[in-house]
């Protein structure tokens, strides 16, 4: 039995997959564990081999070399040579005969590669692969969640390490966050990583110079600047502005094993979201992470206990003073500042400024409701539910079309309407980002439908639209219920004084409207553990009216009805929606 883990993303992702590798080794003793990585990660092979992991390298340069050769340009010859390179690379992998393939790369190339390897060996796959018609296949729920909900500008708060573990089907323990180089005690060195994978994720070079100048006065040990070779020029520019024998510029000069050793021995790492910060997680080294909206610290932030995150919408908004004060505080055992995010007890502790931030909070709670059994959240104060109404209307329209289709067979108008529904659904997040998690969930689940007969596809698509209808109904019914309850309160205020004067004529229409609302409410199902108070109070009112005791009717309206109106807000099914059903349906689907 052999398992292959494919991790062909960036450097940092490989380190974030490390706990999953440890967990796989732990949970599958005696089974072969293989890992496929890119060439630039080959240097880590020694560490991985020492862990009992067999490492395979994707020889990208060799495979693509024919396209760059001086004699290149001969179409068929270049392609054939490159394809031969792929076949040569695949041969030893095919020879292993994997029983399981876990693709943690989330990329098109890796999905075709997974399909190729799994097709030959019949391996069980998790992670992106391909259907037999070549379309993307996402076999497991965790990868589907990642596809739909992870990334910049989204509201996912599951860390990538946890998502990787979930794709692999393993539970991580604290011991899984370890690396063979994690030995000995921490020193007093401060590591500074000045770069990041993108400029928008990086702290401005001129601000780094001031931070370094401040650090020279604030720390006792050496200050080692680390980074990749392409960050060398930037580091030299920064260092030219700060003269100190305690600053060591090692950018582009360290091997991976040296970097691991430095991170392991450091008292603190300061830097943006990048590979050294991910290494620090494995080394148990605290990180002062500079983060902004261009990254999602929930997904890729440092996990070592006691790490802190300074967050601003843009990097340059994090002041030099903040960085220096927080670094000094961390080195001296001080308390975090009030704007700092702290990694504590295995979770990120948010400052007040971020704790109730909307729409982020709503978005995250909505994700939990969609994918777990959590309750659907209230819309943020002041937010419009219009997009959810549209969602409901579109889902209802689609279900109606499928129903007609079932009875009357396919028709051109139904097809046109369904195409329009698709188009309008795709546009809804642009109208209101609050609906994006639902639309992304729905579209991903649709994408997951495999090749099948027209009838099966129709049935499965209709079922998904029905699930969408239930989810949208939560907010559709809630808004409708609130509107009706507000109207009922106004009508009570209008009708009760007139009833006391036996003036039924002037309020006939209003009273009728009030009774209709009450009858609708009385007929609406409630949450399981809540008794619907409307039938009882409605019966009493009708009894008073039959006896023509309008004074008692007015008393009932002003006292009992008003009390019930206040009480049922948040309790009746149209306020809570059919949450239980919607939860179950979404959870079943995922």
């Amino acid at each position: 039995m052999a398992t292959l883990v494919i991790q062909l993303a960036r450097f940092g992702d490989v380190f974030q997959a490390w706990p999953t590798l440890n967990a796989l080794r732990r949970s599958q003793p005696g089974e072969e564990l293989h890992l496929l990585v890119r060439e630039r990660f080959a240097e880590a092979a020694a560490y991985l081999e020492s862990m009992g992991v067999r490492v395979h390298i994707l020889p990208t340069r060799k495979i693509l070399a024919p396209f760059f050769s001086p004699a290149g340009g001969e179409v068929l010859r270049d392609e054939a040579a490159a394809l031969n390179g792929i076949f040569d690379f695949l041969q030893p992998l095919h020879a292993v005969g994997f029983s399981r393939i876990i693709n943690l790369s989330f990329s098109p190339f890796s999905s075709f590669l997974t399909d190729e390897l799994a097709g030959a060996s019949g391996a069980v796959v998790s992670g992106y692969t391909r259907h037999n018609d070549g379309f993307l296949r996402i076999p497991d729920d965790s990868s589907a969640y990642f596809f739909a909900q992870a990334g910049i500008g989204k509201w996912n708060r599951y860390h990538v390490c946890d998502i990787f573990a979930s794709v692999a089907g393993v539970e991580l323990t604290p011991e899984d966050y370890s690396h063979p180089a994690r030995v000995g005690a921490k020193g007093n060195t401060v590591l500074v990583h000045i770069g990041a994978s993108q400029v928008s994720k990086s702290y401005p070079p001129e601000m780094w110079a001031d931070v370094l100048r401040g650090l020279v006065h604030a720390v006792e040990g050496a200050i080692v600047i680390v980074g990749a070779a392409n960050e060398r020029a930037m580091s030299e520019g920064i260092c030219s502005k700060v003269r100190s024998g305690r600053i060591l510029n090692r950018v582009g000069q360290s091997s991976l094993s040296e970097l691991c050793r430095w991170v392991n021995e450091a008292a603190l790492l300061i830097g943006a979201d990048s590979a050294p910060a991910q290494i620090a997680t494995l080394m148990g080294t605290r990180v002062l992470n500079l983060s902004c909206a261009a990254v999602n610290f929930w997904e890729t932030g440092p996990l070592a206990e006691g790490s802190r995150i300074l967050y601003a919408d843009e990097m340059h908004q994090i002041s030099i003073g903040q960085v220096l004060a927080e670094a000094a505080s961390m080195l001296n055992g001080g308390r975090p500042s009030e704007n700092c995010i702290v990694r504590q007890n295995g979770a990120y502790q948010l400052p007040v400024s971020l704790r109730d931030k909307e729409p982020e909070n709503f978005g995250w709670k909505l994700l939990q409701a969609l994918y777990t059994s959590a309750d659907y959240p209230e819309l943020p104060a002041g937010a419009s539910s219009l997009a959810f109404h549209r969602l409901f209307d579109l889902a209802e329209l689609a279900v109606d079309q499928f129903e007609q289709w079932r009875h009357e067979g396919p028709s051109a108008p139904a097809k046109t309407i369904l195409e329009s529904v698709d188009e309008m659904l795709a546009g809804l997040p642009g109208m209101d980002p609050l609906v994006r998690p639902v639309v992304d969930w729905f579209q991903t689940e649709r994408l997951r439908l495999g090749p099948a007969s027209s009838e099966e596809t129709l049935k499965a698509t209709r079922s998904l639209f029905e699930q969408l209808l239930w989810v949208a109904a939560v907010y559709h019914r809630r808004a409708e219920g609130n509107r009706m309850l507000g109207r009922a309160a106004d009508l009570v205020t209008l009708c009760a004084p007139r009833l006391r004067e036996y003036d039924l004529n002037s309020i006939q229409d209003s009273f009728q409207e009030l009774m209709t609302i009450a009858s609708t409410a009385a007929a609406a199902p409630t949450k399981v553990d809540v008794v619907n108070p409307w039938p009882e109070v409605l019966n009493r009112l009708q009894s008073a009216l039959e006896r023509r005791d309008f004074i008692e009717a007015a008393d009932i309206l002003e006292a009992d009805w008003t009390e019930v109106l206040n009480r049922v807000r948040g309790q009746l099914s149209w306020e809570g929606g059919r949450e239980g059903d919607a939860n179950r349906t979404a959870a079943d689907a995922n």
Partner: protein
Amino acid sequence: MSDNANDNEKKLREALARLEASTRKILDTRGYSRDARSLKMLEEMLREQLTNGYTRNSTRSIR
């Protein structure tokens, strides 16, 4: 960007265009066969080099 890098990128773009045409032809005539899969692999490998983008999320755009 240096001349060499520009030249490499140009070569890659041309190779990608040719591969896309070859793959499309095979998909149209023979469906998603093993040959098509190999060509798609090569095609995506080239695309990753060109965009130099974050490969993690890039599947989103291809369906």
